[in-house]
């Protein structure tokens, strides 16, 4: 496509933008204060319009240390329903899991009166809110942000939330990261990670020695209070070396596995701002983040991986002041291609020289991240083009419906299609039905694989088109299902036969933004029946009606009676509201035949009402 030649590497530019705003330096300033002055707690401050809440990095995690890698399903531990949007998941996906100890830490904070009061005050005053924290405080901040985002979504509040963490351990599994993307919250998390800091990488390694970690945390906590105190709890050099090797080795395994097999329990969430003495870059693709964590740690040492956790103040100050200087280029010959020289600038910002062995893999990693970032929008644009191409197939089905609805056999397109002979017309419609199905299945597949923009299912164009497709074509799918007798094999359509795509479209339609009143009264019948499963319900009702004649067990009979009664009410309501299309009411449509048969049966029953007095009013007294 030739875009490669004219493309740009932007991870460094984004980091420059972030660094030029006051967000990073203000956040760090508050984290730093919170570390020393509110251990085990948090502090709140208002700066301009922006409200800040900073969680202290000085936290103790219940009885399970963060080393324990103990993940719990969020849904089960979320007794107060704080994270409802994260409970939804796609089929086949592992449930959303988070670190048990860290979740407990947040939950215990969340129920405290002081937290509740201060959050309330903060939300009243400020439009946007920054939630920040260093070390363990950052992970608490992440949970707090997830809670606030869930809450704001439930009350449709426009308040913006941004989470900025500094050197924080991972919080949850890949499903969590995916769920965050699905809710379009990926842009609300910015994790600052210094080049060698071991803390954010720690949970990639299984259970490091408990005592080592205990000492490490203690050393960090004391150093946060006062650098001199740290000396009291210095770790042995061998321990540091062990830890460094352990983490590096496990990171390597995960990083090399790539995207195919997610072998890690924990998974990055949101964007990562990697900073060095020379600058910073910002990456959001999770696989690239893991790779980058590994590659950068490779350039570190047992000493730096521990000390780097305490150096965020220096890093933040440095990147915040970079804007003033032109910055000189270390590399002698600058590549002519825009992309390559952008990569060279990124490498320089990470403090990596082009001769270093990690230079090449870092470059590859940036390349992948960029490609992954561009893909969704490109795919969406391509899909729009293919949609335009398949639209005529849909138009042909519309045409088929119209001609069936008007034909002399008064059956409507559902029954016509179900009872079709081998005519060319029916075959063609069937072919179109398949073509449309494969188009939409492909859309769903791409969505599942995160290959489409995260707000794809909120875009009016796609919500409306999918709804229209569903209303028009699902009846044909139902017809085909019963035509081929699948209901004998698998069971009824509604329970066993409905394609997943329709359920997804139902959800899109339900979750769309609805403006003003929807309760316009219809003056004429709708052009498409508004419940696309209407015919499947008719089929079930037909079966009940058949069964009622042969059923003798009064309890079963009562059940059938109830079912039929419910269906009749449902159908009548649709018809009364004119929410059915004309084909439903045609003389020979399955529905109409059913209605006739049902009233016949009822009048028969009326005749023998002496025998079954209780059935007449549709009420059953067993």
């Amino acid at each position: 496509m030739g875009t490669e030649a004219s493309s740009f590497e932007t991870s460094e530019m984004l980091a420059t933008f972030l660094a030029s705003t006051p967000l990073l330096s203000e956040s760090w300033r508050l984290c730093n204060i919170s570390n020393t002055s509110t251990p085990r707690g948090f502090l709140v401050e208002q700066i301009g319009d922006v409200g800040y809440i900073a969680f202290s990095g000085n936290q103790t995690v219940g009885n399970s240390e963060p080393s324990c890698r103990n993940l719990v399903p969020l849904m089960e531990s979320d007794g107060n329903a704080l994270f409802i949007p994260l409970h939804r998941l796609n089929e086949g996906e592992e449930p959303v899991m988070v670190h048990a100890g860290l979740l407990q830490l947040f939950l215990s904070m969340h129920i405290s009166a002081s937290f509740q009061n201060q959050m309330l005050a903060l939300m009243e005053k400020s439009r946007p809110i920054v939630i920040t924290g260093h070390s363990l405080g950052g992970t608490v901040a992440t949970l707090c942000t997830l809670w606030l985002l869930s809450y704001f979504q439930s009350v449709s509040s426009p308040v913006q939330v941004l989470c900025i963490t500094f050197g924080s351990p991972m919080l949850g599994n890949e499903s969590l990261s995916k769920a965050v993307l699905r809710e379009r919250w990926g842009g609300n998390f910015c994790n600052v990670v210094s080049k060698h800091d071991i803390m954010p990488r720690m949970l990639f390694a299984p259970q490091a020695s408990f005592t080592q970690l205990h000492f490490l945390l203690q050393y960090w906590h004391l150093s946060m209070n006062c650098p001199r105190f740290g000396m009291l709890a210095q770790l042995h050099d061998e321990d540091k070396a062990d830890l460094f090797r352990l983490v590096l080795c496990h990171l390597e395994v995960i990083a090399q596995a790539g995207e195919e097999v997610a072998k890690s329990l924990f998974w990055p969430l949101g964007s990562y701002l990697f900073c060095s003495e020379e600058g910073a870059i910002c990456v959001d693709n999770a696989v690239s983040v893991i790779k980058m964590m590994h590659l950068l740690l490779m350039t570190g040492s047992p000493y730096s991986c521990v000390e780097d956790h305490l150096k965020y103040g220096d890093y933040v100050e440095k990147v915040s002041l970079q804007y003033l200087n032109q910055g000189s280029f270390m590399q002698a010959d600058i590549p002519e291609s825009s992309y390559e020289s952008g990569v060279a600038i990124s490498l320089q910002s990470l403090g990596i020289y082009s001769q270093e062995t990690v230079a090449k893999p870092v470059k590859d990693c940036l390349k992948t991240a960029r490609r992954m970032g561009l893909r969704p929008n490109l795919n969406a644009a391509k899909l729009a083009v293919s949609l335009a191409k398949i639209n005529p197939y849909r138009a042909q089905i519309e045409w088929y419906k119209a001609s069936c609805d008007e034909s002399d056999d008064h059956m409507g397109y559902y029954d016509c299609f179900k009872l079709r002979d081998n005519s060319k017309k029916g075959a063609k419609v069937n072919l179109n039905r398949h073509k449309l199905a494969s188009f939409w299945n492909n859309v769903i597949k791409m969505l599942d694989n995160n290959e489409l923009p995260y707000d794809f299912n909120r875009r009016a164009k796609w919500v409306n088109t999918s709804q229209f497709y569903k209303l028009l074509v699902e009846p044909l799918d139902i017809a085909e299902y019963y035509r081929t007798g699948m209901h004998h094999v698998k069971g009824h359509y509604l329970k066993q036969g409905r394609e997943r795509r329709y359920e997804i479209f139902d959800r899109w339609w339900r979750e769309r933004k609805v403006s003003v009143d929807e309760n316009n009264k219809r003056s004429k019948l709708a052009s498409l029946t508004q419940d696309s499963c209407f015919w499947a319900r008719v089929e079930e009702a037909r079966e009940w009606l058949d069964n009622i004649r042969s059923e003798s067990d009064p309890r079963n009979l009562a059940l059938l009676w109830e079912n039929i009664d419910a269906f009749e009410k449902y159908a009548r309501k649709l018809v009364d509201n004119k929410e059915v299309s004309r084909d439903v009411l045609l003389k020979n449509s399955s529905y109409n035949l059913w209605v006739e048969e049902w009233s016949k049966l009822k009048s028969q029953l009326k005749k023998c009402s002496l025998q079954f007095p209780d059935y007449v009013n549709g009420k059953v007294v067993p």
Partner: protein
Amino acid sequence: MCYKIKLIHFFKRRFEQDQQTKASEPKGMAILNLGENIKINPDIVNKACSLAVGAHNSADKPYILQNIRGSPDLVIFGFPGNWSVNDWYAGESFGETKINLELFPSLRSIGIDEHAKVNKAFLQRFDDKVLTNSDFKNKVQKAVTERKQILFTGHSTGGSIANLATIWFLEKYLRSDNYKISPSSPLCVTFGCPLTGNHIFSHALRRENWARYFINFVMRYDIVPRILLAPVSSILLEFQRVLQFLNEKSINLAHASINSFDASNFYMKVMKNASSVASHAACNLMGNTNLLLETVTNFIPLSPYKPFGTYVLCTGNGKLIILRNPDAVLQLLFYSSQLCKEEECTDVAQRTLQQHFGYESELQDSFQMLNEVYLEPLEQLPLSAESTSDIAIINAALNDLGLSTRARLCLRAAGELEKRKIGNKDSIDLKKTDIEKAMKYLLEDYQLNCGYRGLGCYDAFKLQESSKDFDANVKRLELAGIWDEIVEFLKRYELPDAFEGQSDWIDLGTRYRRLVEPLDIANYYRHLKNEDTGAYMDRGRPKRYKFTQRWFENAKRMPAGSSWESCFWAKVEELRIKTSNAGGFAQVKVKEEVLKLEEQVQKWIKGGELGKDVFLEKSTFMKWWNTLPEEHKSKSCIKNVKDS
């Protein structure tokens, strides 16, 4: 390296052209060639500059005026600057407001229908002091009547007033074709002028092909053109003192000084904000897809201002660097005043203020050499400060502005974006034949077929009785696909700014709208979508028709919404529902609407916007009209039109 050869070729050609134009001018008179057919005599720039700087001494006057003899004669209008915080920032953080469309009808984006934003203080000053309460309009009218060349000029905020005066002039005289004497008149020449409008402002001027009339001279370090990139809240502390300094300096060049602490702080704060604006813009230019970018902009208000017109940057060593791409200018404004070394800070900070008053002498020096460098093509600028011989001139110029590799990449990205926009335009230009082919089918085959059936296209399509109707529907969908793509491009500003003013597309869009929109309406009412979503006009009208209607109305200078002939059938359908309801035609309001429609139909039939098939016996329109009371029908204008 093929591209290098191309580049050498390009610069060689450019150089030869320049030599030619210089040679063709009368001897002894150097001409400043700004491209796009704009040439200007440096003497005139010098005179304008003196007038602009001198205007500060008459700060109480709305403008000063100078006549210069020549062929033809020239009138220069100079506007003084102002030096209080409220003259820069009125109210909100960046002091911007929606443009006054009565005064500046062109300053909007057409399809999206978004109004430009402009600095409120500048707009108010121009409106109150210049336009309403002075003899400015008369003096301009006099100059126009006497066929004089006209030049507006200003230094500092005076430049922004000159910008607005020029646009007012263009709206009044050029749009109505009342004044065309030379491609270089009117001109607006500013010196160290703050940014005035937002991206739509800039977009609209380029669409109207007016950006060429604006020439902005900016000294490399002059802080004034950068100030509005910072919100007033962030600089308030130092801004008072800076303005005081500028004010004293404007009166007496020698007797002003400023505390270097204030100067440095001011410089650093403005630069920090400029850095946010520039790096944010660069992320977008370079196609960054990270969602964080969007989130952060909700936390950090970014300056809405964007440059427009031709920028001439004075490097301080006599070179004049010329560029026009607004995205590139914005980047340049930031990067060219970065520090080379940290130690420079105090020194550069002083220079950023001093240079604001250095235009007269700098330009006199520069014009003696007349060493112009065009930064074009942007997407091929050299990235390394180490010069390679073939592009040495450009590279030297970039070095003179202190542009790092990062800065050069940003300029390239601005160039690439423009190139991509042109590529998008080329790709949709290729679809013109598809559009014409589908429209030809509808216009000829389909219309003919409908005619056989005694129906107009609208009614035939609504009934959908023949397979031809199905074919027409497929064509409708095909066309919708293409036009929706164009609308998407426009919504993201991914077509060249000029697109919505291009007559071939306006014409095609209008023909498309008149031909196909009735089919969309037919489809809408056939499927009773009015009952699902509301009346077509209010809720159901696709953007592709709204956009094309606005293009047409803008091109023809028609009031917004007046060219709704393609919605005729929707109006008929809605009136049909209204008159069949209880009360119906007897209601005064309904009757008024009917009369209005009838009047329009008469006009449209005469003008050919509407076909005669609306009067066919079986047409929805006639069927409805026939249900109206006899008394009304007998007096209706439709009666005559229909029978004639």
